[in-house]
């Protein structure tokens, strides 16, 4: 005769969800990126880490570094997560990202950076302001220098306000190459910055933009006016563009 209490207790042993192993063990992939192969580490909630192979070195060293830094096991991933390969070709919304190890400030900085369209650049100070911490310009630089998912969160589109492209995780040359692939005319922007022009406005619309904003690129030479600051543009009767939100 079975004891109903013992039988009911045994029925309380619910099996683990099928997702448990994926929650614990991450997967790695080696896939083509815009400047050569990249290594990616993917967890159950999204891409956790992405590094250019040329920068990260040998795969084994990269994986061992991941295991010791994050204390997480990592095995070959059975397949690429949805959206990763198109995103590395510059298309689509991109894969889900797992940025849960970061601070709320770092996550906000990356969320702001992720909204910069391809072919456009923004200064570090703009990211700081959009992230709600206008004084934290250096901290923004630190967060972006440690971006766990470059290319997917396009930190290469954040540059210095003086026209210099600034630093990049895998070196300035990569940053320049990525921006040029997206059609950013760096020489032209440097010339503008050297002349003290940070923003450009149209005298037909009365709107002032960052020079790479798609609205700014449509302004014809006859109607284009440069400004060293938003304050000067406002003083001349211009209002800031609602898309690129110049600061």
């Amino acid at each position, binding site marked *: 005769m079975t004891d*109903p*209490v*013992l039988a*009911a*207790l*045994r*029925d*309380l*042993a*619910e*099996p*683990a*969800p099928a*997702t*448990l*192993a994926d*929650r*614990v*063990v991450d997967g790695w992939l080696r896939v083509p990126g815009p400047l050569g192969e990249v290594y990616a580490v993917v967890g159950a909630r999204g891409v956790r880490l992405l590094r250019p192979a040329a920068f990260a070195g040998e795969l084994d060293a990269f994986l061992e570094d991941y*295991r*010791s830094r994050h*204390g*997480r*096991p*990592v*095995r070959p991933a059975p397949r690429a997560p949805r959206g990763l390969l198109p995103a590395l070709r510059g298309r689509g919304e991109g894969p889900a990202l797992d940025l849960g190890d970061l601070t709320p400030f770092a996550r906000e900085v990356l969320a702001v950076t992720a909204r910069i369209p391809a072919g456009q650049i923004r200064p570090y100070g703009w990211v700081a302001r959009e992230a709600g911490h206008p004084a934290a310009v250096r901290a923004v630089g630190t967060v972006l220098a440690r971006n766990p998912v470059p290319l997917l969160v396009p930190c290469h589109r954040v540059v210095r306000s003086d026209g210099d492209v600034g630093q990049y995780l895998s070196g300035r040359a990569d940053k320049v190459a990525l921006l040029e692939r997206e059609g950013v005319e760096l020489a032209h922007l440097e010339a503008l910055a050297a002349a003290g022009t940070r923003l450009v406005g149209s005298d037909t619309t009365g709107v002032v933009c960052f020079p790479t904003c798609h609205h700014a690129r449509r302004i014809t030479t006859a109607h284009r006016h440069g400004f060293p600051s938003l304050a000067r543009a406002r003083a001349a009767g211009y209002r800031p563009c609602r898309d690129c939100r110049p600061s």
Partner: protein
Amino acid sequence: MADDEQLRAALSEDLDAGFEALVRTHGDVVHAVARRTAERAADAEDLAAEAFLRAYRALRGYDPDRIARLDLRPWLLTILLNTARNDRRDAARRPRTDGAADPPDRASPAPGPAERAEGTDLGDRLAALLATLPVAQRTAVVLRHVVDLPVAEVAAVLACSEGTARSHAARGLAALRTRLTSTEETS
């Protein structure tokens, strides 16, 4: 399912591949105990995953001799119970701000332990009553009777003698039976 001898060999040979096999083999028992330890069902998988990650970090520092001597299931369950205890302590020190915990003054739509203990489903009532047992008795009942561990493993997890483990389990079970009867009489 790999047996523990194979798992220990796999862990020594290739820690990460062996570890995935370890999760697949012992994931159910770790999750089942987590489910009876976590206060909310949704926390059980998080707790189980966190315990496995702690086990992985420990294994990275173990040499093959130490891995060869590991009794995997009680070792994992000990880590799970320590993880749960640390989480409870942290939660008491620092109230969670993610909105996952109900504010204490708001009536929760889910029935509390008292209501569930008076329900009709024997499993629901036992689950609710388990939460009212002293920790040692509850743990012993969960390990011995829910996930069906041998007494020796229950004793290893509780870090006590087999006699004491048997006695915790028996007293916990007796308390459950008494409380079942008393809730039947009052309802």
